[in-house]
């Protein structure tokens, strides 16, 4: 995982905040994943501009926490594996 690479949500999926469900959801053909708060916050920053480093920094500032890099990298790796996220080539 290159921390300076930017990533984005796979355009075949659709990420959005759902008021009724009080969480971010990821929609795909005939299905939906309700994302945990941390997964939703990370994916919401995967806009093709943010790098892993800048996502980590932004979330650490937002939630006043340190040492989130490991969790973010682990989630992004897993989400790329699932094709939810893509490297921005």
């Amino acid at each position, binding site marked *: 995982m290159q921390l300076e690479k930017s990533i984005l949500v796979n355009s075949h999926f659709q990420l959005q905040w759902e008021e009724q469900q009080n969480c971010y959801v990821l929609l795909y*053909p005939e299905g939906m994943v309700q994302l945990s708060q941390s997964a939703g916050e990370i994916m919401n920053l995967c806009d093709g501009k943010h790098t892993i480093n800048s996502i980590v920094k932004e979330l650490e500032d937002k939630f006043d926490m340190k040492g989130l890099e490991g969790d973010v990298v682990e989630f992004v790796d897993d989400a790329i594996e699932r094709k939810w996220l893509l490297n921005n080539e």
Partner: protein
Amino acid sequence: MNNEIKPPLWLLLELTHKCPLECSYCYNQLDFASTKDSLTKEDWFKVMEEARAMGAVQLGISGGEPLLHKDLVEIIQKANDLKFYTNLITSGVGADISILQKLKDAGLKTIQLGIQSHNETTTTLITNNKNAYKDKIAFAKEAKRLGIQLIVNSCITRQNIGEIGDIIEFAESLNANYLEVANIQYYGWALENIDALLPTQEQLDEAKRVTDHYRDKRPDMKVFFVVPDYFATRPKACMNGWGSTFLTINPDGLALPCNTANTLPLEFPNVKDFTIKEIWNESHAFNYFRGDKWMNPTCSACPEKEKDFGGCRCQAFALTQDMHEADPVCDKSLHHEVVTEIVKKSLNSFDAKPLYRNRVNSLKFVK
């Protein structure tokens, strides 16, 4: 059972029941010719707005053939603006190929394309439309060229079950993202034609084996295999439970808990008379099979009732003439022999000719 009413998640719009294809396995009602296309564009917009406000996120656009509807592009655009995840369920036949660019620009996410065969002769035989094969291939290629996600849906019957390996390879050659090998369910035209369509248990086992073989080799195309319930001993959890997840609106404006629910002796509300919220939460028809109070003793005493909700109401009614019965595919049903008899009769019908699904044939069923 929990009787709290959860909002619908999935909205299916059947824009029209007109279709350029005449597939004899269609689940549409036999008398579809009497269903009018009576909703305006604004009616469809209102339905989508109200369902979305309740929390619906998935939108299927179907029919009949939705490409025949003049407001299709605007309806997709509206759905996308409302943040539905949009899925066009289509034969790929019935509109100029240039419509795909317009649909893409309107935000369409996914196309679910029906493919009957890798072979032109089989496709023509099943669809009774000699342009179908060429039109479908052109449609699939243009969709992929534009970067639209493609699901190939292949309805499987006795007419094409021997070709599953070829169909999988064909779907792959079209660069499908997903393939659904959908052994058909027997409703509407399919039930009328079952003697010509039902495969044998051996054919199904072989089809499953071939599908599994290909599935392991094809990591880039997800393959789903839908098993027909006539060979099962437990019913499917139809529509994830009546009035729990799915809402269908038919061309006439009828709101239905599933695509075929208006075959039941219930009065369904029309979106021209009520809001989606009223229909979903308050209507007699949508509440009728919620929970377990409606169940007969076979189901109400069954430990699996929260898993399959007694199965499909339309199937129970079509095969036992009582919509409160257990779905007779269940081997606990007192009417299970109805299914085994239909299977036996069908498999002994070697010369049955299917009735094509078209307007002329449909008019014979209009009362």
